[in-house]
């Protein structure tokens, strides 16, 4: 499939039309969606109508934006007016948002065509897309395996050539881990770089929206479009979107990159090999590789599984059957709330609501949530200290390549460990990118992760580009 940059260029030059690109995307979805369960909703008519509108504007010589005619898939926790949005949950079945997420407005303004909504772990709680109320998504590279999660549908849409771009959200690795398992570039931007307005919240202090693409340039192109201050999000950074594409070829010469022991510890051998090879490639491009240890990162998983469920227990309270979504009738309001939530939420969501409620409860707050906040502060400080010495950090994205269905569903702790390398970045509010590098078990792709301080996206993309070029067939 053509890259997003190529499609946009062809549509603007008249070499192709948005309608033809959207038709090709629709054909790919029609051919593979039944098998892979990528899209929960395909907005065929609206996509074609939008594409024709773009073509008309091109024919009139109007400006049509950096993503003109590029099909894009939206994770099902992003609101788009009138498009069913469920966050992968039964409790929101049939809900039609009356407003657009800021990122949706921005990609549309840039000329992208929203093809529909992609499958996800329920309320983004999972690492395999198996907790979706609408069935699991299959990994296009090996349909017997998971695509990762929670943004598994958005990863699979790009990996199966249904769309060249997609948007996901990353609370503890939900973009980077599926990107790694599907052989894609996936980015968790600096907290506040991309507006969360219209993103159905999982854990507000950790959630960030970011891009999936097949290459670093397309990911940069999409992030440039969605980033930048938004008055609708109080936690939005004050500045405009950074220039990323223009700095893609900055390289890594003279940079110091830390290879972090805790970010490969416990990973499969094939994954460790890929990370070491990536370090070699960066060194070959002129970077200095420094092996280092940040012991605080080992505390990330525990802190995360208190902070994220605590916030989620509050964020998900509103699904009570009163105003929208599922309602299971009962004798009084409290009984109706309970019946609705019992029927509407899946097991993993219930587990985390209970964990979070407990962690915030009087008498337990200090020992759990309060303690987790302290660990979070330690993590932030530890990263800051590391970045005094190095520009970026390097490690694995996930401990293994894509795993088989059911491999970890019986043991939540095993599943939670899928995110052990990605979670620290969310806790710190920093930026990270996962780039495919090498292959592992079963010929499946391995993702390596580059981490940087807040607002280091341009450096991360440039380093990712170095890794991409190092693998390009010469």
């Amino acid at each position, binding site marked *: 499939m053509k890259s997003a940059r190529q499609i946009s260029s062809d549509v603007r030059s008249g070499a192709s039309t948005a309608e033809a690109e959207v038709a090709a995307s629709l054909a790919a979805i029609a051919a593979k969606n039944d098998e892979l369960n990528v899209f929960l909703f395909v907005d065929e008519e609206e996509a074609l109508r939008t594409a024709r509108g773009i073509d008309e504007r091109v024919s009139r010589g109007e400006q049509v934006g950096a993503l003109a005619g590029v099909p894009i898939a939206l994770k099902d926790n992003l609101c788009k007016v009138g498009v069913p949005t469920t966050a992968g949950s039964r409790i929101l079945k049939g809900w039609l948002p009356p407003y657009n997420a800021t990122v949706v407005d921005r990609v549309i303004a840039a000329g992208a065509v929203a093809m529909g909504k992609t499958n996800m772990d329920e309320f983004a709680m999972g690492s395999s897309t198996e907790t979706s109320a609408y069935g699991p998504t299959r990994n296009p590279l090996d349909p017997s395996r998971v695509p990762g999660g929670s943004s598994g549908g958005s990863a699979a849409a790009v990996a199966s050539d249904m769309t060249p771009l997609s948007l996901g959200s990353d609370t503890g690795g939900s973009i980077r881990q599926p990107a790694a398992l599907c052989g894609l570039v996936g980015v968790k931007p600096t907290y506040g770089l991309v507006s969360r307005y219209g993103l159905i919240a999982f854990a507000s202090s950790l959630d960030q929206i970011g891009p999936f693409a097949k290459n670093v340039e397309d990911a940069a192109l999409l992030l440039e479009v969605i980033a930048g201050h938004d008055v609708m999000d109080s*936690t939005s950074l004050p500045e405009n979107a950074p220039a990323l594409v223009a700095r893609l070829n900055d390289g890594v010469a003279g940079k110091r990159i830390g290879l972090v022991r805790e970010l490969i510890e416990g990973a499969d051998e094939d994954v460790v090999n890929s990370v070491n090879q990536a370090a070699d490639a960066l060194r070959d491009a002129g970077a200095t590789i420094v092996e280092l240890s940040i012991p605080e990162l080992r505390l990330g998983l525990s802190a995360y599984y208190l902070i994220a469920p605590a916030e989620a*227990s*509050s964020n998900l*309270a*509103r699904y009570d059957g009163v105003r929208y979504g599922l309602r299971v009738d009962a004798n009084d309001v*409290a009984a109706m*709330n309970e019946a609705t939530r019992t029927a509407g939420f899946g097991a993993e969501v219930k587990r985390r609501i209970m964990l979070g409620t407990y962690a*915030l*409860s009087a008498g337990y707050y200090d020992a759990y949530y309060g303690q987790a906040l302290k660990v979070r502060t330690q993590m932030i400080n530890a990263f800051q200290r590391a970045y005094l010495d190095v520009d970026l950090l390097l490690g694995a994205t996930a401990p293994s390549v894509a795993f088989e269905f059911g491999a970890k569903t019986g043991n939540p702790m095993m599943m939670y460990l899928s995110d052990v390398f990605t979670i620290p970045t969310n806790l710190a509010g920093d930026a990270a990118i996962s780039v495919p590098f090498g292959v592992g078990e079963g010929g499946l792709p391995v993702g390596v992760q580059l981490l940087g301080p807040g607002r280091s996206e341009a450096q991360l993309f440039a380093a990712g580009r170095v890794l991409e070029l190092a693998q390009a067939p010469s």
Partner: protein
Amino acid sequence: MTLPEGWELVVGLEVHTELKTTTKMFCGCANAFGAEPNTNVCPVCLGLPGSLPVLNVRAVDLAMAIGCVLHSTIGFSTFHRKNYFYPDMPKDFQISQYDLPINSGGYLDLLDGSRVSIERAHLEEDTGKSTHLGGSGRIHGADRSLVDYNRSGVPLVEIVSGPDIRSSAQARAYASELRGILIATGASDGRMEEGSMRIDANVSVRKLGEELGTRCEIKNLNSLRSLHRAIDYEAQRQFELIGNGGAVRQETRHWDENLGETSTMRVKEEADDYRYFREPDLVDLVPDEAWQQRIRGSLGAMPADRRRALLARLDNPTSSQLDALEVVVDLGFDELVLAAIDAGVDASLALARAANELAADIDNIANLTPDAFIETLKMEQSAALSATQAKLVLLALLHGGGDPRAIAASKGFEQLSSDSLGATVETLIAEHPDEWARYRDGDEKLAQFFIGQVMKVTKGQANGKAVISELQQRR
């Protein structure tokens, strides 16, 4: 009501006031009372999935203004989520302030010289409004409930007093003084009947010198009168309960205005656990020195200052004049009254007309110019108009403005000539010889009798002072 010697009432008040902003606390919806249900709503104040709050800076300005007047410490503050399920709360949590409120500490001095400490005055959002159909009208046992979210997200300040109040009268004075401050700062319209100022009272009784008794929180106090009555009722109830060997149970009680009773609403078996935690969708609130200075600089005179200014113009004020003064300051007519006094109008007359006639027609007050008010009162003072006529002229002015002299002329309010008045008085003296004799013997009360008779005959056209003058000539 007073408790017996040796017993003490202890009251602390929580006053919720809706802030008079144009838009709601976290979204751009109109903050307006009385609109069609669920018309002033948007994804944010309906708590739709994915929506986020953005703080209305004007609400912070008004909260800080309240803090300035209450001598609070204004400082770094944060927002927290107060988590509990209730159908009129769209997110099933309320954005409020917890350990770091915008206003901490402070006090309010009352008219009687007492001082009530303020613990905090913090910002929070209002909930929607539920209407329960069938059953008792409360949520339990209702057939169905309707919710109007127009009020959801309206900015509130909750002002929490210390447990310093010792009588229902003091509680009322505190609430009244606070209400005046809220109106004077522009923070609120103070309309209790519309719910823009709501009071909860924490009431307990104890033997003097003993530890604080178990308290009950009383809700549904919709007027200063309810506040006063409910505290008296509750104090008596608790005193009798203890006197009969019982114990007060910590609970929330509902005031029934018709029955004049409080009744159990909710028993607090254990402390509520609202699982407060920092609201991650909002950033810290840092009211720096420049911001505080701007707010302080924008404050006008407070009711206590204005009361003092007016009081200085009264010689040996009577209690009815003091009452009128309260009303005048409360309604913001004090500048008008001062202008009239400056122009030579008698202070008691200006106070009386403002506290009665203008207060009764407050919605039309914009039609009345200070000049017209002063002119009308001067005509009354010079006996060119009777009191009844002056009131009618004021009424006409309030309902359409105009020139008082022209209005008086058009209504035919020519004063009775003294010849004609003299003749009327002569006739009445002849008709009431006994009363006349008593008046001649020095019973001044009978003057009022003759004024009343003259007014009856002249249909209120006569001036009372002129009647007295006619009577005295014939004494």
